[in-house]
């Protein structure tokens, strides 16, 4: 006796390749933003220590090693 196949709705593919590449680019961008807040000392931002000093208190209170 043939097994009764439950009719399941065909789901669209979880994530298309395009979404995956977009997501990868977004993740890189956001990690860079987090890096600027948490670790940068002018090497990436080219602002010297200005951004580093400006966000000094935030870094301490977010729990990132500072100095």
């Amino acid at each position, binding site marked *: 006796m043939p097994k009764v196949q439950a009719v399941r*709705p065909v*789901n*669209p593919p*979880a*994530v298309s390749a395009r*979404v*995956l590449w*977009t*997501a990868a680019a*977004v*993740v890189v961008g*956001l*990690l860079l*933003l*987090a890096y*600027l*807040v*948490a*670790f940068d000392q002018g090497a990436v931002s080219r602002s*010297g*220590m*200005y951004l580093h*000093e*400006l*966000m*000094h*208190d*935030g*870094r*301490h*209170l*977010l*729990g*990132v*090693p*500072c*100095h």
Partner: protein
Amino acid sequence: MSLTAQRTTPTYGAILLRGLLAGLIAGLLAGGFAFAFGERNVDAAIAIEEAAAHADGATAGDDHHGEDALVSREGQKGGLILATALYGVAMGGLLATAYALLRRRLRTSDARASLGLAGAALLGLVLVPFVKYPPNPPAVGDPATINQRTISYVSIVVIGLVAVWAAVVAARSLNADAQEWLRATAAVGAFLLVVTVGYVLLPSIDEVPDTFPPSLLWDFRISSLGTQVTLWTGLGLAFTGLLSRLTARSAAARGKTESVPV
């Protein structure tokens, strides 16, 4: 009839936008918390740092907080809100991306999936690192070891996330008919195993000077933890709220345009 059978799937862009917005909200909330409860500890620690610098007879003040500093103390207090807001936006976008990519693998409701991811991030990104490398106020920490401490900190963050992931894998590796408590035990066991290995392998760092007031150190660390907990709690709730409005709206739109019985 069964509208639930066909998921209404919002686009990645729509999810990401809500994550970024939720991150901004959560970052401002965390900034408000840090401003209200953390700044006085930072101020007190800086006063100690400067007193020590003057007593040493070293260069008056230091490069961070002296009168001729690059950014004034007032500027740094404003910068605090900027820092938490930007950090919140970054974390919100990362949470939204994780949600968009993992949603179908998390076999639960939309709200529990997003809240669960935020909770997992709080555990892996904040609580696991907090125990190994608790945050330090100004005047604590040797500037010469900053690179080593930064590498160790990033390592423990990665280990925290791996530990959460290992917990999920362990819980799912059991048979489908395994009891719930057994799954929970496997999850906790895998989590603790990864965290313990990380704690043992990474170097211990204790650079608190003997003269630093212990109660101030405690207050600072609690206010720092509170800042991160505010950020992730606010982010999880705001993201889930914005997301549920989005799905409700697209479900309504779908109901209007499509009359195809599912």
